[in-house]
């Protein structure tokens, strides 16, 4: 078969989740290149949309890739650059953040951002009996963050007694989450649960609550299933950590593997493949625990 040169374009490791992405991409490169001598995998990380567009160009013109797996930094911004690459005959698999024009891709593999917002909201509604005070953390202003927030809000609409007191940006960053939570605690005397929306942010939230010695918060719901949080959940070490929602960066590994193996055989992938986000609780936590991953 024809030699496959597979480019992988992903965001640079700036927080836990993207750290995991980079880890799993490199892991895939290692495993797959060993298994398939006809395969070359080239991993590129970008710290912004324009940089990622540059990398696509470089992968195409210079590295002469014939397959691409891209985790777009931004959906809208990368649609055109990806379309350009596809136009040159490269097989394109888009991961996680869908392009605004689906004709620019051959296959789409993604996590489920709607579920990422919906599952926590439903879980909180259920365990809190449909009422109580909530605060939420937001990530960095992006379409993805909006999708999650909208999904969360839409569930809350059905539960008028669940009050979302405020939702501020904490940039998927532990420190910012710590500060925002401190100020929430100053401001709101009764908080029943926190939707931290990301396990990195959950770390900061927990520390802030501990510091204030507040006992009113019964649940802190993170997200994405970082290994530290999963471990805590498995061991039942923190009563506030009762559940999580899966959104494993490992899907980049799967996407690379699926694409590489399909291309080596000259096959195509199904147009869309959604890796479902599921609720993680103590019972199924072990399934989501990857001690070797940095995330």
């Amino acid at each position, binding site marked *: 078969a024809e030699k496959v040169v597979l480019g992988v374009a992903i965001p*640079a*490791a700036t927080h836990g989740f993207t750290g995991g992405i*980079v880890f799993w991409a*490199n892991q895939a490169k290692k495993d797959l290149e060993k298994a398939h001598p006809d395969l070359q995998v*080239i*991993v*590129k*990380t970008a710290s*912004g*949309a*324009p*940089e990622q*567009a*540059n*990398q696509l*160009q*470089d*992968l195409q*013109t*210079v*590295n*002469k890739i014939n397959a691409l797996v891209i985790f777009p*930094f*931004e*959906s*809208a*911004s*990368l*649609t*055109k*650059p990806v379309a*350009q690459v596809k136009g040159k005959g490269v097989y394109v698999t888009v991961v996680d953040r869908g392009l*605004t*024009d689906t004709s620019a891709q051959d296959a789409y593999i993604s996590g489920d951002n709607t579920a990422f917002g919906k599952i926590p909201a439903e879980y909180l509604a259920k365990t809190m009996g449909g009422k109580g005070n909530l605060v939420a953390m*937001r990530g*960095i*202003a*992006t*379409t993805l*963050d*909006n999708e999650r927030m909208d999904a969360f809000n839409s569930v809350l609409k059905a539960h008028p007694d669940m009050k979302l007191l405020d939702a501020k940006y904490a940039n998927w960053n532990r420190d910012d989450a710590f500060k925002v939570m401190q100020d929430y605690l100053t401001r709101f005397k009764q908080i029943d649960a926190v939707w931290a929306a990301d396990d990195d942010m959950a770390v900061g939230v927990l520390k802030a609550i501990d510091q204030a010695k507040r006992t009113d918060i019964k649940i802190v719901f993170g997200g994405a299933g970082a290994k530290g949080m999963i471990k805590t959940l498995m061991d039942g070490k923190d009563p506030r950590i009762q559940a999580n929602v899966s959104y494993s960066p490992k899907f980049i590994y799967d996407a690379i593997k699926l694409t590489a193996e399909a291309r080596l055989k000259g096959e195509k992938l199904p147009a869309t493949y959604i890796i479902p986000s599921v609720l993680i609780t103590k019972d199924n936590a072990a399934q989501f625990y990857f001690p070797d991953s940095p995330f």
Partner: protein
Amino acid sequence: MPQEPTKTLPTAQAAAPWLGRLQGLGPVIGLVLLCVAGTWLNSNFATVDNAMNVLTRTAFIGIIAVGMCFVIVSGGIDLSVGSMAALIAGSIILTMNALAPMGLSPVMVVVIGMALAILLGAAFGLAHGLLITKGHIEPFIVTLGTLGIYRAYLTYFSNGGAITLDNDLSDVYSPVYYASLLGIPIPVLVFLVVALLGGVILNRTAFGRYVQAIGSNEQVARYAAVDVDLVKILTYVLLGVCVGIATLLYVPRLGSATPTTGLLWELEAIAAVIVGGTSFKGGAGSITGTVVGAVLLSVISNILNLTSIISVYLNAAVQGFVIVGVAFTQRGRR
């Protein structure tokens, strides 16, 4: 005192420019070395396609850096250019999208959008200039403030997500970025023109001379009948216009503006200027150096993209080492 003029004159004249030229070559030498390394690491580096790719993507930062060079030479600084670019991009996309259904031809709409980009840039620059000169506020503070303001308004307009150009407009607009003239991509041509103009303005016009005089010693310039405030304001307007031009080239590339558009461009633009041999303290600077600096910075990341010898985590470290290394080759310039 004509009787005994300057006997050392010939030697001095011969030597000084030569020495100056050698030192000015610091970044050029750095760039050449990098290109050699690039070719050695990946034979595809030295292709026309790759060169054009690199130059095209340098165009944005490069054009902004040309404007930044004026501001820095005059003794100022502008931290807001990245946010300004983002806000301009957002604003013109919104405007074009709003105009599209009003019966204007798409070409007309795009032209209006492009003109608006330049106008907005000039207006923002004017605001900076006025706050700095008439408001007597440090440029660092003014532009640190507007950095936050511009980006916040973009985030607000985009509701935290992306502002995307309508598809048919996008098709009309996209040649501005993707087309070539005589084999040279439009952004590269524009970059070239801006750099040439910048060089001429800085070195061959009264305004450029005033900019240098002000950066060298503002007080002396004032006593020498230079309208210091006006010249300073104009440097910021000029930079704003450059940001506008860069943005109008940028929009057709990605067709959207998001809260992360233009993030850290200010650092890249300032770095291009300083790596190009202009002093952070103002007074003297070179547009050629700035252009070389901008190209050098994108060549570094281009080479990193072309090779995989180094852990992806360490990309930034390689860039850091190269920047310091290049600076070292031209050390002790002042």
